[in-house]
């Protein structure tokens, strides 16, 4: 899962100033670090005087980074969003259609305010989402089938074209007529 915020990137703030903590240097204890495998090397040699410390430095205004909803591929996102729409909007379908219809009728009688225009657009977007959630999956399957048929049609016509290019040569097997005439 991709993490937008790692331990090495955490942002702090204090007294109205935001601080960003830099990455810590790796500290090896007893492992084969600098001098770790060399028994003659003095203890502590190679280790810097401030190893393991982190830097706090001021950065500008920052927002919470937060995780993404999850590591989902685009086709999973489409499926999950359709599921969410079915759960949330499908039960309200009639009411949304009625509201949209009322605003549309009003627009026929006179100009709508900009706020009403935005609402009308939003209601129409909701209806599109509902339609996509209800039949989008089936339409996607149909589109896939149509694409598969087109690919098959192209392959068959290519194969037929290649077949027509074949010129039959003389057969090594003689027919009955040819055998009689040769006698």
């Amino acid at each position, binding site marked *: 899962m991709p993490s937008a915020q790692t331990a090495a990137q955490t942002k702090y703030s204090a007294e109205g100033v935001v601080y960003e903590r830099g990455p810590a240097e790796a500290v090896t204890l007893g492992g084969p670090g600098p001098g770790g495998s060399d028994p003659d090397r003095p203890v502590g040699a190679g280790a810097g005087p401030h190893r393991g410390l982190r830097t706090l430095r001021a950065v500008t205004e920052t*927002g919470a980074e937060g995780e993404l909803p999850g590591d989902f591929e685009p086709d999973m996102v489409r499926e999950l*969003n359709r599921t969410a729409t079915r759960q949330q909007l499908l039960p309200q379908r009639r009411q949304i259609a009625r509201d949209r219809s009322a605003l549309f009728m009003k627009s026929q009688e006179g100009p709508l305010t900009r706020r009403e*225009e935005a609402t009308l657009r939003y209601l129409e977007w909701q209806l599109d989402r509902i339609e996509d959630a209800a039949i989008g999956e089936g339409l996607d399957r149909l589109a896939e089938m149509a694409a598969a048929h087109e690919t098959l049609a192209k392959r068959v016509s290519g194969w037929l074209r290649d077949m027509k290019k074949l010129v039959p040569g003389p057969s090594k097997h003689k027919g009955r007529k040819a055998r009689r005439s040769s006698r």
Partner: protein
Amino acid sequence: MWLDTFIAVPLIGLQTAPNFGALYKYPERLQPLLDEVVARDSEVQVGVEPAGGFQFRTKRGFAYKVLLDNVIVEFTYSASDKRLAGHRPAIELPPVESFGALLEETVDQAARVVSLLSASEPLRVRRVGLLASALMEKSKAPPGVADMIGRHGSFFSGDLIKAESTFVVDLDRAEAHTDRCHHAYAFDDAERPDHLTVKLDWQRVFRVPLALSAPTEQLRRMKDAALAYFERVGQGGLRDA
């Protein structure tokens, strides 16, 4: 609410004055919450920040982080591998929960954490942030978000095929606080066609740190203000209201 129709997750972050003394007592104060999680799920992921801080994540997807000057509660989904004998491994999608319900739960959890951390004195916060992160197809973005991207892209003569942008806007300046929102979106039509990430981070910044003496009520009021703004962003026509 348009966020309910997408896979979207909430985060609540409280920015406090750095308190090195209290930082090392936080894990102890959160003990009752951890005990509940372990009793319910029989597992919990726990991590300690080297520079001070503590975090844990429940099986369901709620993560709690208590850092030097931040208290964060967030939710994330995770897809799991489904392996059946005789079949290829497949990814099992998680059950989708509405953003509104997740946010309610996150507010309750954040209030619980604040109550536990404020055992001796109320937690004083400089800033409260409510972040909504959503994934969607760009072609199905709500009208307001589509307008925002369209207007930013209209500066250029060609088609905008990749963007990663954040716009911070002051929404309201009151005597005691300022409300602002970070509006961020990212897409890359070359790499992932029609894939869009939208993040809206509503924040209330206090001039004088606010003592959260009744965290549930205080956080709920801020949550309502944030949700109302998120809804207007999605509907569009922000300047027409």
